[in-house]
């Protein structure tokens, strides 16, 4: 509901802006090309391993992860081609664990496949059509909404005075 937020910790203002602006500013440690990429979450009702394997060989798809397989927030896939694992990175761990749980609940207990892909809507539409054509039964396919919680966990370090 907020137009903009300010995040304060230990008396210091750490970030001011819209949630998107804050997340953008704090992803500077990531790859520059990262900014053109979107995290896509998809839930399939057909065999999930097959879908993951299929997605991994797709052009433009990277960091394929399976969330919500175990009761502990999901097994991540570290064998993806990408040099840096999505789950690693200073300070991002907590954010991702929290996200995984939300993800799991949102998909009605089914594992969610998450991957990075182009922000281009045409390309997303093509990918979705290709998934369906490959026999994967897709129940949902959506770019991840950047949340205030995500921004908060990225910016703050849990320090109090």
């Amino acid at each position: 509901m907020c137009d903009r937020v300010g995040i304060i910790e230990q008396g210091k203002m750490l970030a001011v802006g819209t949630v998107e602006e804050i997340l953008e500013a704090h992803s500077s440690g990531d790859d520059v090309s990262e900014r053109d990429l979107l995290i896509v979450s998809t839930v399939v009702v057909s065999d999930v391993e097959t879908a993951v394997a299929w997605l991994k060989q797709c052009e433009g798809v990277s960091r394929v992860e399976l969330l919500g397989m175990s009761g502990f927030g999901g097994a991540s896939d570290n064998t993806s081609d990408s040099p840096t694992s999505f789950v690693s990175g200073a300070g991002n761990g907590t954010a991702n664990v929290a996200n995984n749980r939300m993800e799991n609940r949102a998909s009605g207990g089914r594992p969610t496949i998450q991957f990075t892909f182009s922000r281009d809507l045409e390309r997303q539409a093509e990918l979705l059509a290709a998934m369906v054509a490959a026999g994967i039964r897709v129940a949902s396919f959506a770019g991840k909404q950047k949340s205030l919680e995500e921004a908060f966990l990225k910016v703050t370090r849990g320090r109090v005075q």
Partner: protein
Amino acid sequence: MSSSENGSFGDVAIQLDHVTRKFGKTNAVDDVSFHVRAGEVFGYIGPNGAGKTTSMRILATLDVPTSGEAWIDGFSVVDDPDRVRRRLGWMPDEFGTYPNVNCREYLDFFARSYGLRGNDRLATLRHVMGFTQLDQMAEKPVDGLSKGMKQRLCLGRALIHDPKVLILDEPAAGLDPRARIELREMIGELASRGSRC
């Protein structure tokens, strides 16, 4: 941001410029600068003990900064607290209720404190109780209200003098989901009218 970016206060509702508040050796608020424009809903978030309430209390003229300056609707909270109070509705995270006082009497007390008299006062009470949907509860004793109703009452109290700027400290804390959604709707409506929080 720096104050020079907003030389004119035209549409700046809240502005803090390098505000610091020290308690002993602790910097509860440490060189904080930001501004909120008219009609904007600004979320001020941080862990417990980060300095949110301290900075909001400074804006509400209940505390003064050790250094730095802040303005509400263009008026300095340090030099012009009376003008600031006339323009600011402040909803603290905890507020006192009194025994043997009902909702109408409670709001009426604050209306009188702000100098509202006669028909103005009655019209304001009707309006505020209607907006916060407290009219059903008008005769209910304040200290028997649920948390959600108390929050409405406190919001009503903050609105009683028709402030231009609203500052709400933890308005949704302890509310059930429905009360939370209703509060969000009320805040959204106030923001669209140009009140600010």
